[in-house]
Every structure is written in structure tokens, then in C-alpha cells.
């Protein structure tokens, strides 16, 4: 068990969600001329240093929930992304999962990533599934693969209650531009408030852009 330090993420419910226009380029051409080389340098340094950028990716999860039934039997229940999101939403009293999506929020804070349920339309945070903090990682020299180990935390307790293995895969075109970015991996954790063990694998989809961000 690894205890989360007091400086752990205590962000408000909608913090960290990309805001409208956050990544918008300046319209002034002189400024654009200035920013493009800086951006290129930042990209190069990022690739060399393995730096990551905050982004929200759709997440596809498949796994198993093991729990104790009322008659004291162990039940193994297949779980997908919708079921995982639904379980999370139920903890805050929401039963209609339609407007929500399970997402992988890369670099949601300076100590790691989070798996969250957000509103599909505006990206507003609804509830958190796992915080994947204090990552140990190493990369391929060309930057196309980063393998990561993370401790899993919930949004209640300070101790870790699971782990994740993450593979961040980047494919680049001949000019060295990123043309595809995917994270896949495996998760295993237990739920503190019930006798439940969750495990499974996941793959991310494309970055989510919100049409009606607040």
C-alpha cells in the first residue's frame, strides 16, 4: 500500500477539464510567427524528454467485477465501459448514464492521470473512478512507446488500492508528426466501501473535443 501524500489532488469537481478555447491559437499573425518556432522547440523537447500534455481520451474498458452476493457466494460479473461509468455515477445518485462517457484524463494533475466519467457534451467532470498517481515509467528512445506503472487511488481514501500498467503508443508519419496516439493497459483494484475486486484491460480512443464546453 502506498499512502497518498497530503499534497494529493484535491481539485474541485470540474477542475482540469479543458475549457473552451484553451488550446486556441492566437489570431495575430506576428504572434503566430513567434509562437510557431517556440511550439516546434517545445514539441522537440517534449519528445526528447518524454513530456506529456493534458488531454481527455475516450476509454474502452473490459473486465470483471468480483463481489460477494447476499447468499455469500462469489459472483464474477463481466464489466464494460458503460457498466463502470454507471457504477461510478450511482455513487453520486445519477442513474441515467446516457449523457456521460468514461474517459482517460491524461496529465489531469502534476502527479498523474485519472479515469473519470464526464459529460459527453461539455466535458464537465461527473465522478472519478481511479487516480493513477506516482507513475514509474520508461520510454523507447524514439518516443513511440512509453510503459508506465501507476498506483491507483480512489477519491475518498489516501491509500492506494490498486495498480495499473499503461502503454502509451505513438505512431508518427514520415515527417515525424504524431498521427495516432493510443493508451492501453491493465487495471486491478478493489473498492474500499464494498467487498469488490475489479480487474480488466482498456484501450483509449481519440481525444475528446467538447462542442459545448462551459
Amino acid at each position, binding site marked *: *500500500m*502506498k*499512502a497518498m501524500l497530503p499534497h494529493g489532488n484535491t481539485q474541485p469537481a470540474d477542475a482540469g477539464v479543458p475549457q473552451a478555447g484553451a488550446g486556441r491559437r492566437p489570431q495575430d499573425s506576428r504572434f503566430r510567427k513567434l509562437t510557431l518556432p517556440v511550439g516546434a522547440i517545445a514539441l522537440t523537447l517534449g519528445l526528447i524528454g518524454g513530456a506529456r500534455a493534458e488531454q481527455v481520451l475516450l476509454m474502452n474498458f473490459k473486465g470483471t467485477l468480483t463481489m460477494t452476493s447476499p447468499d455469500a457466494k462469489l459472483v464474477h460479473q463481466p464489466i464494460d465501459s458503460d457498466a463502470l461509468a454507471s457504477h461510478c455515477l450511482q455513487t453520486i445518485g445519477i442513474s441515467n448514464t446516457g449523457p456521460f462517457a468514461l474517459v482517460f484524463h491524461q496529465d489531469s494533475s502534476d502527479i498523474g492521470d485519472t479515469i473519470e466519467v464526464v459529460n459527453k457534451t461539455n466535458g464537465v467532470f461527473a465522478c472519478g473512478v481511479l487516480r493513477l498517481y506516482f507513475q*514509474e*515509467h*520508461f520510454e523507447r528512445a524514439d518516443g513511440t512507446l512509453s*510503459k508506465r*506503472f501507476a*498506483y491507483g487511488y480512489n477519491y475518498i481514501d489516501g491509500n*492506494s488500492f*490498486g*495498480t*495499473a*500498467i499503461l502503454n502509451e503508443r505513438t505512431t508518427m508519419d514520415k515527417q515525424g508528426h504524431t498521427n495516432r496516439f493510443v493508451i492501453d493497459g*491493465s487495471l*486491478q*483494484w478493489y473498492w474500499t466501501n464494498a467487498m469488490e*475486486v475489479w*480487474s480488466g484491460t482498456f484501450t483509449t480512443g481519440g481525444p475528446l473535443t467538447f462542442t459545448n464546453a462551459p
Partner: protein
Amino acid sequence: MSHSLGSVVIDEKRAFDKAGDLKSFLATGDIQYYLLPTATNGLGLCTGKFRTGKHLIIKPQ
């Protein structure tokens, strides 16, 4: 030991005979952990599945 380096999900299955005595035991599971860097190797990640076999019986010398 300062903190954990990984986690394991273990399924333990036991079968009992009619007298209630343990007839068989099987543990299976998924492991994921990391290996701290050493003088010769960098950080390592290990993932996998395991399955136990028969009981080891250690005979006294």
C-alpha cells in the same frame, strides 16, 4: 519495506470431501509490479498470470 511495488488479484479455489476435509486447492491470478533499477538494469515492469500446482511436501532430512 517502505511501500508496495505492485498488486496481485488472487482467486483461491478449495474443494472439500464429504467429511469436510480439504481435497484440493488451486490459486490463480494476475500480477503486475515494477522492479526497481539496479546497478546493471534500469526500471523493469512485470505483468503476468500464475497458477499453482500440487502441494510441495518437504521431507525432513
